[in-house]
């Protein structure tokens, strides 16, 4: 996975604001855009650490996309945004 391009970051920022419109307190649109950039960079800088945190069997078998989506699923579940069939 590579860093997002400027247009990809813009679209990520735009859709984030549509899906999660706030309120964000005193934060401005520019502040949210800076956060998108920072998260993208953080993901870039911590890929190795994340990969090493995965159990060896999964780490060796899963694709980068599968590993990335697993992180998304775990975080989404933690913040209450992911429902499973078992939730009824």
């Amino acid at each position: 996975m590579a860093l997002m391009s400027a247009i990809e970051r813009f679209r990520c920022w735009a859709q984030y604001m549509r899906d999660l419109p706030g309120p964000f307190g005193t934060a401005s649109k520019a502040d949210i855009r800076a956060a998108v950039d920072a998260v993208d960079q953080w993901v870039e800088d911590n890929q190795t650490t994340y990969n090493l945190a995965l159990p060896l069997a999964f780490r060796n078998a899963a694709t980068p996309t599968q590993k990335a989506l697993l992180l998304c699923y775990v975080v989404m579940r933690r913040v209450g945004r992911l429902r499973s069939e078992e939730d009824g």
Partner: protein
Amino acid sequence: MATVYHQFDAMSAQFLSTAFPALVRNGTNVPVYGLAFDAATDEAAFWTFRAQNYGSGNLTVNIDWYADTASTNDVVWGVQLAAITPDADTTDVEAKTLATANTGTDTHLGTTGQRLHRAVVTLSNLDSLANNDNVWLRVYRDADAAGDTMTGDAILVLVTVSYSDT
């Protein structure tokens, strides 16, 4: 000397086929119809009217709006018009272009997120407006302007255009 007023609500807005605000109906005790302008992408709404008794001078455009979720920062509104004199102008009405926009910045006054604000834009680019012209008014949120810092949608509920009859 008198002031002429034209009022336009969300329900009477017209749109192009792309980049238009969503029509929303909110309100618990009274229906609040509005046009929800995106925070990231410029969107525009149009109204048409006849400039009856237009005398001279700039147009004053009041934009009544409220924030969907925010309670701070600024919104930049843009307004522009196209004017045609029927039976005189030979311009193709379907190909008519708009005059340069005028913009105004309005700051969320805080305290209550969904309080009503009134932005004022002085429209000085008048496209040679004359009495009884047909006018197309375009109102947009200049979401990609550096000065537009407010998160979330800005919901427009009413536009008022006023001008002098002398």
